[in-house]
């Protein structure tokens, strides 16, 4: 099988996204914020459908209704936890209350990651083929608690290993139809990379930060692989430190000079930068992908992740 290059593109434009944000704003105000899940769906639909792979767009098939239900459940969950916390305080057990709060936070994060990936992947479709996330919730929780524990007792040094283990677990459980991802990043390499980035950034008075970003991006992308049977697609970053410099400084200037109104343009620039700088090649036939992941419509985890305010990052 001959090797082939595959192309990812982002075709969206700032004005369209700006319009979506304005409309979302209007409808959010009119509905006193209840429109939020539908607004989120519209935005994601726009971003997905303007991202193409091999000239075919992705589709986000999640709906506002699903995310609204998830949002209500997530809120109830948080309220329940808060009630338990207050009850413990009321019982004059402040130590237990604090312990409960930390335990809750440490458990809710993996729960939210799991739910979020499960929902988002099931709602990601390309060429009619659904993605999927087949990770196990308990295992992710164990991995997470272990990571938090070792990170604390090593005063943060284990963080690099924790981060890579988490990424490996999540990425390797992502499916694209009947194809699966492989992630080969290691804690030790990641640690050295960050150590180097940290010191060089200090020495260069911050200038190196763009090259540090480039190396991080490269490390995430170059260690990624897509497998189906014995066929593989390799990923390679083309991003340069200069590229990151003009992206990040440009975004900052846009936000400053438009008083924040230009935010959609920064989103578009970032997505375009990401798509343009990810190169894929290999002997893989995407046409042969088969529908093999089930649909999953519970958005509770995704909404929890939203409430906790951590971005959706692979």
């Amino acid at each position: 099988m001959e090797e082939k290059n595959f192309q990812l593109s982002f075709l969206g434009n700032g004005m369209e996204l700006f319009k979506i944000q304005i409309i979302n704003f209007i409808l959010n105000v009119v509905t006193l914020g209840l429109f939020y899940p539908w607004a989120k769906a519209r935005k994601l639909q726009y971003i997905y459908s303007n991202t193409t792979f091999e000239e075919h767009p992705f589709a986000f098939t999640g709906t506002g209704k699903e995310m609204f239900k998830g949002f209500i459940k997530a809120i109830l969950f948080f309220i329940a936890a808060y009630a338990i916390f207050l009850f413990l305080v009321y019982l004059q057990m402040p130590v237990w209350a604090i312990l409960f709060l930390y335990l809750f936070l440490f458990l809710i994060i993996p729960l939210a990651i799991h739910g979020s990936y499960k929902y988002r992947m099931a709602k990601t479709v390309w060429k009619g083929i659904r993605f999927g996330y087949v990770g196990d919730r308990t295992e992710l929780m164990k991995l997470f608690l272990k990571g938090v524990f070792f990170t604390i007792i090593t005063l943060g040094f284990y963080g690099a290993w924790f981060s890579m283990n988490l990424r490996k677990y999540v990425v390797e459980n992502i499916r694209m139809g009947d194809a699966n991802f492989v992630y080969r990043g290691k804690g030790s390499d990641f640690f050295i990379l960050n150590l180097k980035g940290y010191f060089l950034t200090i020495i260069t008075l911050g200038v190196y930060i763009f090259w540090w970003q480039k190396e991080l991006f490269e490390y995430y992308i170059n260690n990624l692989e897509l497998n189906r049977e014995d066929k593989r697609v390799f990923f390679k970053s083309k991003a340069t430190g200069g590229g990151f410099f003009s992206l990040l400084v440009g975004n900052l200037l846009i936000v400053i000079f438009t008083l924040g109104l230009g935010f959609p343009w920064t989103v578009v620039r970032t997505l375009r930068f990401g798509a343009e700088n990810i190169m894929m090649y290999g002997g893989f036939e995407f046409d042969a992908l088969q529908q093999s992941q089930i649909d999953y419509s519970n958005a509770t985890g995704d909404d929890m992740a939203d409430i906790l305010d951590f971005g959706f990052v692979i």
Partner: protein
Amino acid sequence: MIETTVQYFNGKFATPYQVKMEVDDKSIQLYDASYNADNGVCILLTKCHYVVLKENAFIYLNEGSTEYVIVPTNNEHYQQIISGIKRSQKGWYDILMRQKWYTLFLIVVALIAVVYLFLDKVVPPIALKLISVKQEISLGNEFYSSFTANEEVDSSATFILQKFTDDLRLSDQYPIRVTVVKDTVVNAFALPGGHLVVYTGIIKQMENPEELVALLSHEASHVNKRHSLKSILTRLTSSFIVSLFTKDISGMSRGLIDNVNMLRVLSYSRELETEADNEGMKLMVRNKVNPVGMKFLMEDLQKLHKEIPQGISFLSTHPLTNERMKNADLFSKKYMQLNEPFNDELNSLWHELKQSR
């Protein structure tokens, strides 16, 4: 009825199939290449949605977007097919999406204006009606305790001034309770529900007891006319609007506490000030005190203002205008004949107060 050949993805494999497509007003029909009419799939246009990217329209045939056809923009029936789907989609969102950005921008501006007017002009009067005098008094007490926590209260002067106030009839509805705060600031203000705060700085500036009665009557009128409650509500709703638009939820809860502190520096509108002057002078007349005290008070403060323009907080929170001075003058002229001697007890309390510092 339109008939054309398109690429079809069936949601089982990522492989395209050539199919024949028929489109009428309401639906899309797909047939395999052999055009076997029995094997047709029929999809209602209302179930379809599409994306146009570069030279192709991707028309999704189900909600899960797993089945779709590709219609190139150079297909002779492209316009008809797309406008058919467009016509069957009449959602709010789609209508808004078709507007120009400046139309949307105008809608946003209009919306902000409407929300602002609503929260600024409609909500406070309603809230004012809903809050009973009893609730207002207990709210005022809460504000008062949070306020006095950071101030040095002059308790002996407070005792004397409270006695002075008790000898006057300043309010029929609210218990008027005064507090003297040790501070050189030339200021006084009213909290909702009857607490008046007077700084030693302003007492020092006054030359006769009529001025003190004028000050207390003026502040008591702010209480009686619920001015401070009104301004708290207005500020509260405007900080709510800001939090709504900036999505700053914590700002909403912070609002109330901030507003208590705002009262100290809050300036009332001209109308409210004039109303408090007039009501205050009526109270003075009711208490058989010559309303000319109001004019004296204003003159004293203005004189001081000319000497140290930045020194008098009272003037920035109670903007003194020529109109107000003229108004006080006119009012008091009507009562020139009111020449009763100043109440003895009040007079001795006044001297006690002046000496207490």
